[in-house]
C-alpha cells in the first residue's frame, strides 16, 4: 500500500494550490434549520467559481445534497462548511436537505 500513501501525500500537497485559486470566487450562503432551507431559490452567475457557505442553524443535523451538482456535505448542528463550485452551465440545479426527506426541494439557478 505504499503507492496509496504516496497518493495521499500528493493530494494533501496539492490542496493549498487549489484553495488559492478559489480566492476570487463569488460568495453565497445557504442556511439549514431542522428541515427548513433558506433561501429556497438561489440565483448565481453561470461559468464562475462560487463559494457557498452552508450553515446549519438547527438543533439536529442536516445534509446539503444535490445529485445534479454531484455534491453532498453533512452538517452537524451549528456547523458551517464552505462548498466550492467551479463553473456551472446556465440552468437549474435542485438541492435538498437529505436528512429531512419530506422538506420541499430548493433550487440553485445559474444564469
Amino acid at each position, binding site marked *: 500500500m505504499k503507492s*496509496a500513501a504516496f*497518493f495521499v501525500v500528493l493530494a494533501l500537497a496539492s490542496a493549498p494550490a*487549489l484553495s488559492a485559486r478559489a480566492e476570487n470566487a463569488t460568495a453565497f450562503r445557504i442556511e439549514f434549520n431542522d428541515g427548513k432551507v433558506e433561501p429556497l431559490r438561489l440565483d448565481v452567475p453561470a461559468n464562475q467559481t462560487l463559494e457557498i457557505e452552508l450553515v446549519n442553524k438547527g438543533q439536529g*443535523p442536516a445534509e446539503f445534497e444535490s445529485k445534479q451538482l454531484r455534491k453532498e456535505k*453533512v452538517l452537524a*448542528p451549528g456547523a*458551517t462548511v464552505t462548498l466550492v463550485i467551479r463553473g456551472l452551465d446556465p440552468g437549474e440545479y435542485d438541492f435538498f436537505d437529505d*436528512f429531512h426527506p419530506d422538506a420541499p426541494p430548493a433550487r440553485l439557478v445559474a444564469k
Partner: protein
Amino acid sequence: MGQFGNVVFIVWRESIEALLVIGILQAWLGQQGGDASSRGRAYLWAGVAAGLVAAALLGTALILFGDRLDDDSQQIFQTVLMLLAAGLIVQMVLWMRRHGRTLKRDLETALQGAADKGNWWGVFTLAAIAVAREGCETVVFLAGTLSAARSGGFAPVVFSAVGGLALAVATYGLLQLGGKILSWRLFFRVTEILLLLLAGALLLTAADNLVALGLLPRLSGRLWDASSLLSDGGVFGGLFASLTGWRARPDLTEILVFLVYWGAMAWLLFRPKPTTR
C-alpha cells in the same frame, strides 16, 4: 412517528448501498476456489471493519472540525481513494480471470500463496470505502439527532437507528436470496460485470471530482438529458448511478471516460490469450 420514521429511513438508505457492495463482493468471492474465497473473505470483512473505524473517525472529525476542513482537500482525498479502489478492482477481476480456473488445480502452494496474497486489496479497499463513505454521514446524522433529542429522547432514536439497520440487512438478505435463483455460471458472469460496473462508477465519480476541482477540463456542457428515461437523482436513480456510473445528463468528459474505460475493459477481457499452456 414522523421523526423516528425519518431516522429508520435514513439509516436504511445510508446502509443499503454499502451492503449491496459487500453482497456483490461476497458473491464474487463465493465463485472462486475454496481456499482463495476464504482468504478473500478475510480481506472483505477486514475491509468492512476498517471502513467502520474510518467512518467513526471521519464522522467525529466532521463534527469536531467540520468548520475548518477544507472542501477541496476532502474532495481530493476521496478522489484518490476512489481511483485507487477502481484500479485495484479491475486488476483483481482480471487476475482472477487469468488464474481462477487453474487456482484449484495448482497445488504449488508456495508460489500460488504469494500471488494470492497480493490480490485481495481490491476487495479490502472497495469494502472499506463503501462502508466509510455512507458510514461517516450516518455517524454525523445520528450524533446530531441524539444531541437534538435532549433528555429522555435517546432510546427511541437508538431503537429507530437499529431498526433502520435491521431493515437494510433484511433487504440485503432478500437480494441474496434472489441471487440463489440465478444459475451458477451466469451468476459468476454477472458478479464480475457488477464489479467492473462498480469500478467504472468510481472512476466516473473521480473524474467528476477532478473536473469540479478544476484539475480536468470539462470538454462540453451537458450533451443530452435522459432524466425522463432514468433520472440519476432520487433514491433509486441515485443508487443506480453510484453502482453503475449512470449519468442522465453527461458532458463530453464523462462520455470519454466511460468509453475509454469500457473500451479498455473489452480489450483486456476479450483480447486473444497469450499462448501459455
